[in-house]
């Protein structure tokens, strides 16, 4: 999984409670992403980061916030979890250039299964 870990790997929580998921990388890659994966929808981008303290919204950002205080860590927070946020969450990392070639290849972590009751 390209030096990417996610924690926790599984979590069950109740509606209305805050939840924080952590992504940690050992690759020193600049770009980090949070996706959610749901049946029939594929992977959808929630937020991404292009450096420490630099983040931006993705396709499905409502109800989520992120923070990146260190290169290696990217946190995803659900301020008040809802049942519609039950999903599998994946973190991904990428580095833009390899041998001078601009690229957008992303490497994914193992995922976090979140169930909101």
């Amino acid at each position, binding site marked *: 999984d390209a030096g990417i870990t996610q924690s926790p790997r599984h979590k069950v929580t109740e509606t209305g409670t805050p939840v924080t998921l952590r992504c940690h990388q050992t690759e020193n890659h600049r770009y980090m992403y949070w996706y959610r994966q749901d*049946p029939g929808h594929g992977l959808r981008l929630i937020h991404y980061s292009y450096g420490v303290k630099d983040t931006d919204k*993705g396709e499905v950002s409502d109800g989520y916030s992120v923070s990146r205080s260190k290169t290696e860590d990217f946190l995803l927070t659900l301020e008040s979890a809802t049942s519609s946020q039950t999903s599998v969450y994946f973190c991904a990392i990428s580095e833009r250039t390899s041998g001078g070639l601009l690229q957008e290849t992303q490497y*994914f972590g193992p995922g976090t299964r979140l169930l909101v009751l």
Partner: protein
Amino acid sequence: QKEVEQDPGPLSVPEGAIVSLNCTYSNSAFQYFMWYRQYSRKGPELLMYTYSSGNKEDGRFTAQVDKSSKYISLFIRDSQPSDSATYLCAIGILNDMRFGAGTRLTVKP
């Protein structure tokens, strides 16, 4: 209409068959094209990536991009039971990759 459409399958083939997986997209600005393999309860694993029209080959895998038709394909030759997985296409631009919903493939011994 989704920006990336992928044949949902499921697809079941005998061992040794040639497999063809396809995606179409709607945004002509998309310039990065990738295929990922995802085993059950695992993260997606990058298989192939390309940034131009044409074919790219890597072992038993060939990725094909036709920008004029907005159509990409992944071919798997001599398919093996270990190829049984869900295959995701990813198409997009920097910081905005769009993923297909995935095609579930089963290769039977």
